[in-house]
């Protein structure tokens, strides 16, 4: 098997150009190694960009957040826990797998793997992230998260391309609070049965002026629940509002999930709403 361990972006582009159609880029490798050993993957070449310093960066400026493809879940959960508008990213990253997984797995790797149960899919959707895609000619193209996920394990990424970073617009969410929570089979080391991210902007009078809500592990791709968002706008964060939002979220889960999971997930979504909003209230106080 051919292999490339580029140390600059130029070398990465060259590796993408030379690697051929069946080359594969790996980040943490925590999913890919399993696929490889199960014989589900048979790459002609492996490309590991972990030695490119720029890809390890998490850059938070006044108007944007940029997460390099090799920044790990452990690093993200540390870096963003105290930033209210991005705390949902820390929640999700800190809940992925086990400490061993979080030391290597990356947000971008999770997105490119595109498992419907991936915790970072609803997160990317929540922040309307933009993916920076590099090709073999060294050209960087922006791809919106709404165009990226095509189905289970399928993305808009073409052979010979690699995602080098994702960006979130910080200006759009400055002053907002956020939270992410998931339901799994157990409290640690679990794969999401449903994941939910919420972003709220609450004005000085305690009224929600804007809201975003996304769900993962429900449909094949992450979904944004616009009906729930509209419900929240202009209302205080109280029990009556929460009940209405919970009903909409639960119905959305019912309508979008596979029939085999419907009974459980429709009900579980209610508890998940309670958990996410309890976390948001804690963050606001």
């Amino acid at each position, binding site marked *: 098997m051919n292999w490339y361990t580029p140390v600059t972006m130029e070398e990465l582009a060259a590796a993408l150009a030379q690697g051929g159609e069946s080359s594969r880029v790996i980040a943490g490798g925590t999913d890919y190694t*399993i696929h490889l050993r199960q014989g589900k993957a048979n790459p002609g070449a492996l490309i590991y960009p972990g030695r490119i310093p720029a890809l390890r960066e998490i850059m938070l400026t006044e108007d944007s957040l940029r997460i390099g493809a090799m920044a790990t879940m452990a690093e993200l959960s540390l870096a963003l826990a105290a930033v209210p508008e991005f705390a949902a990213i820390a929640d999700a990253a800190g809940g992925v797998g*086990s400490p061993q997984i979080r030391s*290597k797995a990356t947000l971008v790797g999770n997105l490119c793997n595109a498992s419907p149960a991936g915790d970072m899919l609803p997160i990317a959707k929540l922040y309307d992230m933009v993916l920076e895609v590099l090709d073999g000619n060294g050209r960087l193209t922006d791809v919106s998260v709404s165009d990226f996920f095509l189905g289970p394990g399928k993305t808009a990424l073409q052979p010979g391309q690699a995602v080098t970073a994702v960006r979130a617009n910080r200006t759009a969410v400055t002053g907002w609070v956020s939270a992410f929570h998931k339901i799994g089979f157990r409290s640690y080391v679990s794969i999401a049965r449903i994941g939910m991210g919420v972003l709220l902007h609450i004005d000085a009078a305690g009224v929600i002026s804007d809201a975003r809500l996304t769900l993962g592990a429900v449909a094949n791709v992450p979904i944004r629940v616009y009906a729930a968002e509209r419900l929240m706008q202009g209302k205080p964060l109280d029990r009556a509002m929460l009940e209405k939002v919970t009903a909409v979220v639960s119905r959305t889960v019912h309508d979008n999930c596979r029939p085999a999971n419907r009974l459980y997930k429709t009900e579980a979504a209610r508890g998940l709403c309670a958990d996410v909003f309890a976390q948001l209230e804690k963050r606001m106080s």
Partner: protein
Amino acid sequence: MIVSFYVNDRLVQLETPPERRLLDLLREDLHLTGVKEGCGEGECGACTVLLNGEPIHACLTLAIQLEGCHITTIEGLSAPGELDILQNAFAEELAIQCGFCTTGMILSAKALLLKQPDPDETMIREALSGNICRCSGYVQIVKAVKRAARELREAAV
């Protein structure tokens, strides 16, 4: 490919296919058999080693990812014939039955104590949440980590 990395502070250079696992490099090429293969898919934690001080699965780490990295295995915690404070605490607290999970357990605990010298029970349980033990029920293991933390703090005074 030829990959150069550090194992227990010694530089090693190995010729290997890029998709070979760190687990196999350690056990087969370097004869460091303290690292165990349990599930081989990142669920059980028996193959835990430290990469630059962070816990990782040796079964999910490929040779292509290792250039320049520092790996610590259970063999690197103490000189041959001696026990590190953590190893001793696991023995004293009877935190071992079959022993298969122990080396991974101790390395996850080591990673915790490198960052947090005085962890409470929640922190210990979270740090060990990726290591599964079928024998002990974890109570003695948590006690052993607490004991090691205390002894390390006392030794530092």
